[in-house]
């Protein structure tokens, strides 16, 4: 079998499109390359690889997207992201650019304002090159629920890239964006990052404004970046974190300056890293277990101590998550009624029929299934048995993490039970699809930060390592991830995309 991947020994050796953003920054600042050259190269690649279906729309620099010139004019080039091409998941509002959330019901939706993260990226000078494909309304783990066709995993195009932020993961993994934003409600950043061999992070709930993010489950949704390495992740969080009066759940803690802190981190000596034995048990692929255990051993070699921790309520995470998330979704998606924006069914007899037909024809099967499940969980007679029980169990899950973080600084686990699955493999069985989120959803329920970083290959496909930390411990998390990448080369493997 021919090698399906590329491996580089250093960033210098990498082709332009696979270099990390911090190297692109250096090249721009030293005059080795200009932002227009980079954007032309990246957009050219995105067009050439249109078959991966990473993008729902490309934004040419001179197009209607209202892009800045990248802030890359002379004298303004010191900002990290100035002139660097980035992509956005299509549930993030960009003024004047079609924003569909992967749904037919929003197929012609053009926002009249920028999301706060978009405003912040523009201020940072980033060049937004496109909107990326996703499972409809971020509901899914494979992008197979997109109304515009699935994205393909660049490591093996017969396999899913993961989801729901699959297009963003594919963009960063295929060298068609240096950074991409996604949203993570139950693993929708970390799971595709793991399956596509890139870094993906869900920050602490409240650290990134959700203003302009099309809501799925408001108590769980959080925007976060996909990047090539931990240093770029720190720079991406520096650009997008911070208090926003337009999001009432936004944290007013001052955002830390992560990039320098992570770059100059002092290693992991003395750090206690927790492992939950059940994370390596039944149902978890042996290749995944092996790679993740090897990563734990690597941390030990670097001076960290591995300790055993318990998360006794983790096994209830799937029911708790799917009841809370669908309940919130059924309420959030009530706004799509064929009146204010988007699609309206062409034929109806009265107002109620207009609503019902619009929502039938506008939403895909998984979205409808979740609206029904969530409406059921909230309906009279079932509220206490399902929704309220789930909210109480969520409290238990949060308490578990607080106890575990009393014993360990970080928790290390797999991101997914297996590597990328084949298209169609799980579409007929919702529960099988939901189980692919088993290791990621607890972080959303507990509101804590968690990152997925590459930790090797199994059967030629990438395996993700998840590190999670207590609230607002992003610095500690990224310092550990960066230290791991200084000692290992898993992040230097790429899909062989022309």
């Amino acid at each position, binding site marked *: 079998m021919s090698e399906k991947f590329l491996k580089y020994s250093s960033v210098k050796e990498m082709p332009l499109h696979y270099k990390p953003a911090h190297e692109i920054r250096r090249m721009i600042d030293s005059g080795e390359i200009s932002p227009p050259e980079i954007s032309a190269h990246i957009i050219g690649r995105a067009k050439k690889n249109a078959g991966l279906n990473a993008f729902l729309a490309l934004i040419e620099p001179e197009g209607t997207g209202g892009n800045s010139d990248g802030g890359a004019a002379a004298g303004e080039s010191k900002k990290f992201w100035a002139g660097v091409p980035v992509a956005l998941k299509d549930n993030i509002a960009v003024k004047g650019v079609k924003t569909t959330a992967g749904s037919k019901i929003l197929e012609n*939706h*053009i926002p*009249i*304002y920028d999301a706060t993260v978009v405003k912040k990226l523009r201020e940072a000078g980033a060049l937004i090159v496109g909107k990326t494909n996703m499972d409809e309304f971020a509901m899914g783990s494979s992008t197979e629920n997109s109304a515009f066709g699935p994205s393909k995993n660049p490591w093996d195009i017969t396999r899913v890239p993961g989801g729901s932020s699959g297009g963003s993961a594919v963009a960063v993994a295929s060298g068609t964006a240096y950074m991409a934003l996604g949203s993570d409600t139950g693993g929708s950043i970390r799971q595709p990052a793991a399956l596509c061999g890139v870094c993906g992070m869900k920050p*602490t*709930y*409240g650290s990134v404004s959700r203003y302009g993010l099309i809501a799925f489950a408001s*108590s*769980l949704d959080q925007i976060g970046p996909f990047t090539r390495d931990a240093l770029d992740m720190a720079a991406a969080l520096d650009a997008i974190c911070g208090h926003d*009066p337009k999001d*009432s*759940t936004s*944290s007013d803690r001052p955002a830390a300056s992560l990039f320098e802190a992570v770059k100059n981190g002092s290693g992991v000596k003395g750090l206690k890293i927790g492992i939950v034995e059940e994370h390596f048990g039944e149902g978890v692929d042996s290749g995944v277990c092996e790679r993740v255990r090897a990563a734990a051993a690597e941390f030990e070699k670097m001076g960290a101590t591995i300790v055993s921790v318990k998360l006794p309520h983790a096994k*209830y995470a*799937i*029911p*708790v998550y*799917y*009841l809370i998330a669908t309940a919130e979704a059924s309420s959030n998606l*009530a706004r799509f*009624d*064929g*009146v*204010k*924006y*988007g699609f*309206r069914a062409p034929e109806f007899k009265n*107002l*109620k*029929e*207009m609503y*019902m*037909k619009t*929502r*039938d024809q506008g*939403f895909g099967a998984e979205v*409808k*299934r979740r*609206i*029904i*499940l969530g*409406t*059921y969980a909230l*309906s009279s007679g079932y509220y206490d*048995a*399902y929704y*309220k*029980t*789930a*909210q*109480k*169990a*969520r*409290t*238990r899950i949060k308490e578990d993490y607080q106890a575990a973080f009393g014993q360990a600084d970080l928790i290390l686990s797999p991101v997914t039970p297996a590597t990328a699955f084949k298209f169609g493999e799980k579409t007929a069985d*919702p*529960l099988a699809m*939901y189980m692919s989120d088993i290791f990621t959803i607890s972080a959303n*329920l507990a*509101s804590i930060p968690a990152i997925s970083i590459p930790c090797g290959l199994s059967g030629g496909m990438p395996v993700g390592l998840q590190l999670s930390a207590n609230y607002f411990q992003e610095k500690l998390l990224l310092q550990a991830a960066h230290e791991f990448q200084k000692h290992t080369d898993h992040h230097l493997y790429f899909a062989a995309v022309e």
Partner: protein
Amino acid sequence: MISKEEITRIANLAMVELTETEKSEYSVQISSLLDYFRQMQELDLAGVEPTNHALVADNVLRKDEAAASPGQSAVIAGAPDTDGKSYCVPAIIETEE
């Protein structure tokens, strides 16, 4: 087991029309999901406070000051049916037949 009739009732509450095939499918799928979810019932949750807010539950207040808004025509521009000033919808109060 959630019957097809129950799915129809819930779909009506959620204002989503479903085909007969979808009703049968969802009845089977949602029943099996709920069966799995019922494992939560083995938990002793007496006296546990439900998590109603992700992290903080403080009210966020601001000064009652006017701020710029996008304007009527921009707001309704994306709607499927307008008269240029308002959203248009089918008659809400129906005449008796």
